[in-house]
């Protein structure tokens, strides 16, 4: 094979040059070139080494169906592997490397794999590396051991490890009609649809519109088809109701007529403007989809068919017509259908010498014979190619008489000198998207191809994707399918008349020894691999695929599916449709992870910040994430450890006063005449009896009787309540309440509104907390009479209105002060200022946790979706006077079983910290496996007790109090003696908070 730049032709801009690097050598090309065409123009014909056997490979195709020419783009430390050279547009400074070769493309050590060819057949790795039945490397362990060595030998490009510096975006789009593809069918269908005034999106995979017309030598309305297509596309793009997206591959078809596409916004540019993404992920919701996706040419499977220089007939034509690149000085075609004659005719117009046309059919039409005669090509009807010969690339092919009826070869082999063989095995309509949408493809005997199924969503298939293989019928089909209301005027087409029906020949199989005949080029699957799979019992097409990996490479078998299926049908002695087909899956073409992630990379989630967040940061808070919230964990003073910091903070609360940000608590405004009744049904305890101006601690269960959430609910008016939930459960509780109002009790007149963000909350805790309030609150008294435990008052701090509720999570005298979120920092700072004389200390979640562990108050760690009110010693909250959610199920035997885990406290006996998550065991020394009878839910150092303590859920809970057991954490190598105590470890009678 020899390749060079033709003196004219193609849509490249010959006046401008672009410099790029391939395998460390500098080359130049022109704007409009792909990497494939530019390298061909520079005489490069070797593009990669094959997956398994490391065979030298050239180009097979010219577009998204190319299986061989995969390259890696290098940009500093960033590498993008497995990019198809046929789609990669060159730009100044582009650096590319070939793949799967060592040390170079020309000389590859691994090519010795070819000598082991018979060994590396289908299933070789699985059979060989299954491993012995016993021993340390038994069965799959052996495979896993060997796999890393195997992966090094076989494979595609390597992914980089550097972070991807590029920007990707997601874009949402809505339209009435989405047209996929802008070949002749797409253009005419879009024109028809656009004339109705509907909103149209046209998505074209390539940089320009035109599809098959770009390489056509027909004339449309007296002009070259490429010119007609450009004008048509420009006219469409200028319409206000049309969005024309080029370099945009539609790769997924989902339920509800939702399609996904990737737009290569700036992949072809050396530099990007500020904020410009590299690629954009379009999610398109459309009323109707017009699939004008064209067709892929199929190769014929024959011995030596992967030799560089053997290409698809259409690819030979496209390189010449679209890029002005010759791929052979003496080109030969090998075909089972008429389309190769059009390719030959077109190629001859570029001045290329056509040596011969080899046709497996016993008889061809007058049009075909006339073309052969006109271009001076020898016509070998009833012949087939049985081998290829090459030095570095193709130099000749061997042909023999072929009987299309019997598939038998006969007569003396003859050698034909040629440096490029264009092969056509017929055409497969690109029905990938329709198949993804859910339909089962249907076999068309005439075309020897699968056609799209009956639509199950609002889509139509048109043009060659629908099986129309000549320009005239493509245009007329598209005009009908574009719109039921309008019909565009069809252009005049001048074209030879061809028959679109190929002979049903997919493979040439000589008797006896021959070269390897490849079916799947990208995964190195040969025809004999398929026969082997059959002999070993893998008959179903799904098994065949998985055993041989046929069609499972990055090209998803665009060129290999039908030939592979045909060979399987042949060995099984059944028809192709009886052998079945495989469902196509998204993506149609490889899509980068970056573009699917869009903006959702790195820091995946939005940050949720309380109104006082900036104050916390400015005052030394170390934060951590609690759900989406960023909350202070500790306020670190100089040189403190985390434990020292929270111990200091918690001690300050017990001794004087501390302040903590509780704005994250879920808050739900509950209003309406039936609000109290609603809460009685939701909570286990009674709320209708709660007086206005008072709060009550409430517990809710799930319908199955398991504890769900707890919190206080405040009665602000006769028909208005403010419910607080745990931070983590704010969303789930809201949904729970909405569910019951919408679906179970629609007659209750209750409205719910999330007001979590409306209120800033500060909890003031400690013996001096009342004194702090007395210093700064106006408009209300806060003494024990005016503001008793669970009382609520309204007042002011400065000129800011506040609502104060006396309740306690720490077990100390404590208050929660709520103000409008926009005033949160001001109120917080006023409280800090007022507390200065009492040495007020801000405290974080660690101290908050410490205080509650000492008191045995539960949180999500204990309300873990498995525990009951009984397990948590909250059974006193279960009302006997009314039914509530979960009441019917709480008395089930399994939920009252004495073996259940229940809440206890633990005190370390060896003065060592206890790890959260440790198991409770009776073994003195660490042992694996151990019999666990409980686990630690939360642990801390307790400054109030001067000991390391924990809360735990333990079997037989309360009856174990006083027992000495062990908390073991084998993962973190910790094992220590603990004593089981009551979960109320501090101030059991609650005198401190009621004081």
């Amino acid at each position, binding site marked *: 094979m020899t390749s060079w730049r033709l003196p004219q032709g193609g849509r490249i801009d010959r006046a401008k040059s672009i410099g790029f690097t391939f395998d460390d050598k500098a080359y130049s090309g022109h704007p409009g070139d792909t990497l494939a065409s530019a390298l061909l123009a520079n005489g490069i014909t070797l593009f990669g080494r094959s997956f398994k056997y490391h065979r030298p490979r050239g180009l097979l195709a010219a577009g998204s169906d190319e299986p061989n020419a995969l390259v890696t783009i290098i940009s500093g430390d960033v590498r993008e592997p497995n990019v198809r050279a046929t789609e990669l547009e060159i730009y100044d400074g582009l650096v590319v490397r070939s793949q799967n070769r060592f040390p170079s493309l020309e000389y590859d050590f691994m090519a010795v794999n070819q000598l082991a060819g018979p060994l590396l057949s289908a299933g070789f790795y699985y059979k060989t590396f299954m491993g012995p039945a016993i021993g340390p490397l038994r069965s799959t362990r052996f495979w896993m051991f060997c796999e890393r060595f195997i992966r090094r030998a076989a494979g595609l490009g390597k992914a980089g490890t550097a972070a991807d510096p590029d920007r990707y975006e997601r874009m949402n789009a809505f339209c009435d009609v989405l047209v996929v593809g802008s070949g002749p069918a797409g253009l005419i269908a879009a024109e028809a649809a656009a004339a109705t005034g509907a909103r149209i999106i046209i998505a074209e995979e390539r940089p320009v519109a035109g599809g098959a017309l770009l390489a056509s030598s027909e004339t449309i309305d007296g002009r070259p088809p490429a010119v007609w297509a450009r004008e048509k596309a420009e006219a469409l793009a200028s319409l206000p109701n049309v969005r024309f997206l080029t370099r945009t591959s539609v790769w997924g078809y989902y*339920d509800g007529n939702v399609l996904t596409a990737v737009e290569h916004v700036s992949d072809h540019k050396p530099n990007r403007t500020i904020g410009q993404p590299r690629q954009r992920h379009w999610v398109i919701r459309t009323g109707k989809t017009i699939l004008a996706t064209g067709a892929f040419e199929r190769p014929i499977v024959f011995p030596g068919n992967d030799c560089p220089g053997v290409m698809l007939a259409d690819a030979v034509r496209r390189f010449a017509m679209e890029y002005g690149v010759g791929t052979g000085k003496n080109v030969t075609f090998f075909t089972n259908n008429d389309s190769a004659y059009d390719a030959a005719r077109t190629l001859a117009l570029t001045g290329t010498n056509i040596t011969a046309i080899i046709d497996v059919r016993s008889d061809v039409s007058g049009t075909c014979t006339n073309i052969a005669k006109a271009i001076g090509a020898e016509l070998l009807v009833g012949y087939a190619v049985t081998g290829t010969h090459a030095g570095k690339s193709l130099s000749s092919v061997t042909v023999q008489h072929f009987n299309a009826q019997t598939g038998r070869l006969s007569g003396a082999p003859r050698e034909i000198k040629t440096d490029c063989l264009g092969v056509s095995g017929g055409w497969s309509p690109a029905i990938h998207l329709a198949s993804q949408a859910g339909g089962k493809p249907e076999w068309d005997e005439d075309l020897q191809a699968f056609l799209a199924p009956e639509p199950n969503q609002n889509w139509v298939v048109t043009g060659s994707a629908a099986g129309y293989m000549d320009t005239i019928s493509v245009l007329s089909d598209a005009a009908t399918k574009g719109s039921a209301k309008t019909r565009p005027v069809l252009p005049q087409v001048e074209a030879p008349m061809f028959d679109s029906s190929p002979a049903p020949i997919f493979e040439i199989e000589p008797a006896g020894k021959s070269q390897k005949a490849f079916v799947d080029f990208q995964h190195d699957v040969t025809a004999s691999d398929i026969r082997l799979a059959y002999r070993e019992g893998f008959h179903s097409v799904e098994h065949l695929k998985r055993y041989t990996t046929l069609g499972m490479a990055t090209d998803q078998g665009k060129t290999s599916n039908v030939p592979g299926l045909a060979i399987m049908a042949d060995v099984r002695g059944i028809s192709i449709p009886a052998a079945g087909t495989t469902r196509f899956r998204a993506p149609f073409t490889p899509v980068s992870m970056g573009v699917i992630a869009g903006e959702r990379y790195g820091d995946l989630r939005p940050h949720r910040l309380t109104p006082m967040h900036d104050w916390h940061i400015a005052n030394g808070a170390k934060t951590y994430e609690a759900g989406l919230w960023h909350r202070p964990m500790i306020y670190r003073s100089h040189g403190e450890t985390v434990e020292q910091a929270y111990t200091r903070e918690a001690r300050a609360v017990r001794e004087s006063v501390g302040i903590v940000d509780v704005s994250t608590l879920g808050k739900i405004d509950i209003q309406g005449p039936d609000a109290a009744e609603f809460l009685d049904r939701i909570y286990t305890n009674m709320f209708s009896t709660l007086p206005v101006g008072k709060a009550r601690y409430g517990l809710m269960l799930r319908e*199955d009787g398991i504890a769900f959430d707890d919190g206080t609910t405040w009665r602000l008016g006769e028909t208005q309540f403010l419910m607080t939930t745990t931070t983590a459960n704010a969303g789930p509780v809201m*949904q729970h309440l909405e569910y019951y109002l919408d*679906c179970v009790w*629609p007659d209750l007149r209750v409205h719910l509104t999330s007001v979590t963000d409306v209120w800033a909350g500060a909890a003031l805790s400690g013996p001096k907390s009342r004194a702090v309030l007395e210093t700064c609150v106006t408009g209300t008294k806060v003494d024990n009479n005016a503001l008793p435990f669970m009382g609520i008052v309204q007042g002011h701090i400065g000129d800011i209105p506040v609502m104060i509720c006396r309740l306690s999570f720490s077990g100390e005298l404590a208050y929660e002060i709520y103000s409008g979120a926009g005033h949160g920092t001001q109120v917080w700072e006023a409280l800090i200022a007022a507390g200065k004389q009492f040495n007020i200390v801000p405290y974080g979640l660690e101290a908050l946790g410490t205080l509650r562990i000492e008191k045995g108050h539960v949180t999500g760690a204990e309300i873990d979706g498995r525990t009951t009110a009984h397990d948590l010693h909250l059974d006193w909250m279960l009302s006997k006077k009314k039914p509530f959610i979960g009441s*019917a199920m709480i008395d*089930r035997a399994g939920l009252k079983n004495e073996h259940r885990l229940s809440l206890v406290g633990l005190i370390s006996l060896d003065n060592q910290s206890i790890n959260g998550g440790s198991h409770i065991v009776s073994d003195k020394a660490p042992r694996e496996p151990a019999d666990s009878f409980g686990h630690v839910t939360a642990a801390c150092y307790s400054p109030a007790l001067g000991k390391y303590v924990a809360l735990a859920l333990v079997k037989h809970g309360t009856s174990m109090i006083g027992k000495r057991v062990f908390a073991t954490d084998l993962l973190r190598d910790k094992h220590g003696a603990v004593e089981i105590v009551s979960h109320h470890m501090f101030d059991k009678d609650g005198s401190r908070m009621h004081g």
Partner: protein
Amino acid sequence: MIIKCPYCGPRDVIEYTYQGDATRTRPDAASTDQNLWNAYIYDRTNPAKSHREFWLHSGGCRQHLIVTRDMSTHMISSVAFSRDNKNVGDQR
């Protein structure tokens, strides 16, 4: 998948939260019939045909919808506000 909310119009499934089987009826709240409650809480059918489901439009109007959907094709034949539906809920 797209669900056509009767208030907000067609929206992506990402805006919705699946809230379970809409064919069951909650027993009377005062009932202590364990079999009835067991069936309500645990028994579910998974028919390969049309089925009624609750979906909360959590990313939109926050209404619970009853979606009638074919479980084998995902085709949605009707969407209605759960509140307008009189066949659910206990009978207190």
